[in-house]
């Protein structure tokens, strides 16, 4: 995932001040690592797909706010976000459908393994990862849409006022 933005080389100054950029450069790796930890250990410790996915979305939002939208769009474009969103939703239903082969919808069909291991609890970690990716991509996509289209609206309004 996105860890080390090479914004020092970018020519046009976008985003916030160098102080914010430096802090974000140090913090962003930790934020993504924490989000993935929350998702992957969701069946053993507090957390899960929803919380971890929102943390990852916050990481992308920080990138967008600090470095401007070009870098964030390079890391995850709006098209990629919607494709990940749809794919994860479909995979979620597909894994649930596979349960039909073993008896019932949403059946926890794989062997459960020993408790307190990372690979245990059957299908729950898989669901966690799918939901985490889905929440990440959809929340980031909506933030992108709102902020960029919002800017667009404000610029249009400014121009209309100038014309008047």
């Amino acid at each position, binding site marked *: 995932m996105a860890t080390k933005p090479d914004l020092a080389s970018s020519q046009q100054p976008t985003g916030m001040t160098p102080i914010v950029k430096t802090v974000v450069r140090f913090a962003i790796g930790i934020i993504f690592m924490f989000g993935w930890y*929350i998702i992957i250990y*969701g*069946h*053993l*410790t*507090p*957390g*899960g797909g*929803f*919380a971890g996915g*929102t*943390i990852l*979305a*916050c990481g992308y*939002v920080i990138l967008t*706010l600090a470095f401007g*939208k070009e870098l964030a*769009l390079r890391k995850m*474009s*709006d*098209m990629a976000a919607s494709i990940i*969103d749809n794919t994860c*939703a479909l995979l*979620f*239903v597909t894994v*649930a459908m596979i349960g039909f082969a073993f008896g019932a919808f*949403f059946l*926890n069909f794989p062997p*459960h*393994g020993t*408790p*307190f291991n990372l690979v*245990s*609890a*059957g*299908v*729950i970690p898989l*669901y*966690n990862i799918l*939901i985490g990716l*889905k*929440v990440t991509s*959809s*929340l980031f*996509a*909506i*933030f*992108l*849409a*709102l*902020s*960029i*289209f*919002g800017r*667009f*609206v*404000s*610029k*249009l*309004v400014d121009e209309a006022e100038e014309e008047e």
Partner: protein
Amino acid sequence: MIETYLIALLIFMIVGSIIAIETKNLLSSVISCGIVGAAVSIAFLMLAAPDIAITQVVVEILVLVILIRATIVIDNTAIEAHWDTFAVVSSLIFFGLFLVFAFLAVQDLPRFGHPLMRVSQQYLETGLQKTGAANIVASVVLDFRAYDTLGEATVIFVSILGAFVILRRRGRKRRTEADVEKVGILSEEEIREHNGDIRE
């Protein structure tokens, strides 16, 4: 003991919400709303619900960012109150009645600290053996009640779809070339298409 802390926290929340409702400046209003969210997150932590505390604090940050970035930066003018007497008076009367009846109804709920746990006791006892997940909340969300999670995924999918449809660029008034450059996230083909429109 925990009850005292929670009452103090709730009074803090109510004060924060009064500030959020009544202040003129929209930015302070949004930030006060964030304060209420942070206090709710602390209350969840005290009520032994760490899963929700994590989710609440992160979601509340995103709410703040979305509200400020998408709306406040556009228009921050305080709206002068055209005092709508009918709406205010009728809603105040309604809320007085609501609170009286709520006070009566609350007496019949199970006492704080002694919940009814007919189904949940079963989840607590058999959750670890049946699903193998140490986090019982995760086993309820993704195994016992996975239908709810499917519904949630559908709801968030539909809401994102709705927002995209509402904000879409196609089907609106024709853009000039300068506008296309300003948006910046159009693909090459879309820009070419727009240019074609303009040439027509």
